[in-house]
């Protein structure tokens, strides 16, 4: 098999010591899970002790690579980061692009599993040569942003590519991110997990190459994909970036404002925050992730802005000044905060304060930059806000849970579910909580013939499942989702790419089963960690408060869609995969409780 190394690196941290071990993986693992979020979900299942506290030393943090990583195929310089989320207590899987991804795979492994914890804040160096792996205490680096750290390290010649946490990760803010050469992973708080292990930064050194089975085929396909990636299907990302969504969504009345109280900020404000408005506020340049021929990375005054950040630090907290929004986005980058979760938590706190439930000095429209610093350092009220919306609501009480906008503890992304009722289902059932990336069911609501203001109990479950499975395919291969418009037949092309790279022949049907298996393992993980059907729900606001145009969700409809989704997925009522699904996807072989491997012998 090419494209993979057939082994992972198990890293055990204890005191000031690091022990590493190469653990072989059978070829069947790659057939069953491919890589990325699929391989990562399997490894998380195997290495996380059931019921583990996500911030305890025993909780694993998984970096999972993919077979396409390291090939010349566009948008493949990505990896997945997985953990049990400290925000939700459920599975968390994020993706990140970066040169770190390419460098880390050259360790000669397909994943890194980090367990244990160090005594002091340290820099963890991982090396192709196990004897060269080490932890170096770095107290002087405390409080540095990942960017400052990279600058300093490259000036001193310490390392070039790094995966690191900012101040928020060090303080275990429950929605802290991990920054990888400036790109973040970690909706759900992977940065807090790395921070809890007292790892400030991970550097890597290696020269291993996994190779590909059909080099000429891969080269030809790389040229073809690059050409397609320059076409009309991806023009929005190149020309404007996802920030162009804001004005469009305002017009479609799906742009959440003021903690999901309304759905529009008005045309003038929307134009101020649109790409043209941002470019008037600060110098605009376009960049791209490593190895990407699309280049959707639009920066204004050096700060990367994409739609979710723009929504969460703008309309959601009622900020319509582009300079303020850019300052907040820059601060989140530096501090290592997930923008959706921090914006959602602040918006919730603002509404609590405006309703008089608390006497916090927070109002919609305020400059949030000082609050971001307080949250990242857990200072004053920032300490509570660092816990995320669900826990803040529990502390505030007085019925505030009604408008605490999260699912499973994860704050909602920027799409109004009352006006996108297929997506409402996607939010309820997504394994990592309110999520737009592992599902993308919002696409279904913007199709001809779909009444997005109606809960279609008969058809919505299949639409959500298709969106989830499509995302699982792209996220395990890994290909950037922004390439999807240029790939007309993703299952066929995915199978071809995989066969060309690995030499293991896989067909469309195999990959469809892989996607369903990934969904099943995620769900099984959540069931093991305490999931109940009651958490597949949206907050009361979306049922009890109609939008200006009268749109709202009906509890009975959403409950019926959720039930139909689980039945269609093959889950037993209120539980995990049913007998048929277990057989069909050979889940019993994968969802074994056999302890994976003990700590490397060198730690005793």
């Amino acid at each position, binding site marked *: 098999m090419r494209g993979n190394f057939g082994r992972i690196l198990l890293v055990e941290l204890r005191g000031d010591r690091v022990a590493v071990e190469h653990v072989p993986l059978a070829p069947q693992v790659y057939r069953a899970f491919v890589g990325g979020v699929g391989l990562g979900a399997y490894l998380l299942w195997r290495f996380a002790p059931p019921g583990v506290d996500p911030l305890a030393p025993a909780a694993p943090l998984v970096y999972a690579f993919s077979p396409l990583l390291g090939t010349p195929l566009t948008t493949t310089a990505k990896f997945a980061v997985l953990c049990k989320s400290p925000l939700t207590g459920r599975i968390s899987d994020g993706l990140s692009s970066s040169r770190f991804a390419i460098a880390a795979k050259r360790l000669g492994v397909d994943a890194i599993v980090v367990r244990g914890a160090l005594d002091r804040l340290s820099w963890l160096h991982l090396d192709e040569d196990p004897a060269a792996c080490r932890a170096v205490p770095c107290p002087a680096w405390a409080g540095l942003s990942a960017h400052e750290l990279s600058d300093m390290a490259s000036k001193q010649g310490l390392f070039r590519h790094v995966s690191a946490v900012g101040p928020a990760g060090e303080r275990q803010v429950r929605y802290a991110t991990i920054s990888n050469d400036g790109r973040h992973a970690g909706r759900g708080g992977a940065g807090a997990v790395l921070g809890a292990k007292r790892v400030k930064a991970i550097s890597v050194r290696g020269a291993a190459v996994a190779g590909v089975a059909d080099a000429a085929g891969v080269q030809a396909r790389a040229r073809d994909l690059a050409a397609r990636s320059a076409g*009309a*299907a*991806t*023009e*929005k*990302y190149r*020309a*404007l970036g*996802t920030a*162009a*969504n804001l*004005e*469009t969504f305002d*017009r*479609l*009345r799906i742009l959440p404002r003021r903690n999901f109280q309304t759905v529009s900020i008005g045309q003038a404000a929307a134009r101020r925050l649109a790409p043209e408005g941002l470019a008037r506020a600060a110098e605009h340049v376009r960049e791209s992730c490593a190895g990407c021929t699309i280049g959707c990375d639009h920066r204004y005054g050096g700060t990367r802005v*994409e*739609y*979710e950040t723009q*929504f969460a630090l703008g309309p959601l907290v009622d900020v319509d000044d582009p300079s303020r929004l850019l300052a907040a986005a820059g601060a989140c980058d530096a501090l290592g905060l997930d923008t959706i979760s921090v914006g959602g938590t602040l918006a919730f706190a603002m509404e609590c304060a405006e309703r008089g439930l608390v006497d916090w000095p927070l109002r919609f429209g305020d400059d949030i930059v000082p609050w971001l610093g307080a949250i990242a350092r857990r200072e004053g009220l920032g300490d509570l806000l660092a816990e995320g919306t669900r826990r803040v609501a529990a502390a505030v009480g007085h019925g505030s849970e009604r408008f605490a906008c999260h699912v499973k503890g994860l704050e909602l*992304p*920027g799409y109004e579910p009352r006006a996108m009722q297929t997506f409402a289902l996607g939010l309820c059932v997504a394994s990592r909580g309110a999520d*737009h990336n592992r599902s*993308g069911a*919002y*696409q279904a609501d*913007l*199709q*001809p*013939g*779909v*009444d*997005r*203001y109606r809960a279609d109990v008969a058809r919505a479950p299949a639409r959500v499942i298709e969106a989830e499975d499509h995302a699982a395919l792209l996220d395990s291969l890994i290909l950037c*989702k*922004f390439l999807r*418009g240029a790939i007309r037949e993703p299952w066929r092309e995915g199978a071809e790419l995989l066969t060309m790279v690995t030499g293991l022949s896989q067909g469309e049907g195999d990959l469809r089963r892989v996607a369903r298996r990934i969904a099943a393992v995620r769900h099984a993980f959540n069931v093991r960690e305490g999931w109940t059907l009651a958490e597949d729900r949206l907050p009361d606001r979306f049922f009890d408060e109609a939008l200006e145009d009268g749109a709202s969700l009906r509890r009975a409809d959403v409950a019926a869609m959720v039930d139909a989704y689980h039945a269609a997925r093959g889950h037993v009522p209120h539980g995990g995969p049913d007998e048929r699904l277990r057989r069909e996807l050979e889940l019993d072989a994968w969802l074994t409780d056999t302890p994976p491997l003990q700590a490397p012998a060198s730690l005793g």
Partner: protein
Amino acid sequence: MVTVELYGVPRLRAGASSVEVPAGKLASILHALASALPGLSPDIIRDGRLSEHALVAIDGREVVADPERVIADGATLVLISAAAGG
């Protein structure tokens, strides 16, 4: 008349944010739009049909694709990029 509002790539390509065209079937509206705003051809409007890269919604609510669909006088159509994700 029907007002067509343009967002995202369609607006960028057309160089206009709004235009009025005679009411009628969606196919005739798209023809009129392509004539009025040549920058929309061929990537947004091709052979009188919307390409897969764009969507059009009546008053931003109902996404329509049927070329025979009659768009009433006074209606507003919202033309957006098909790639909605962020």
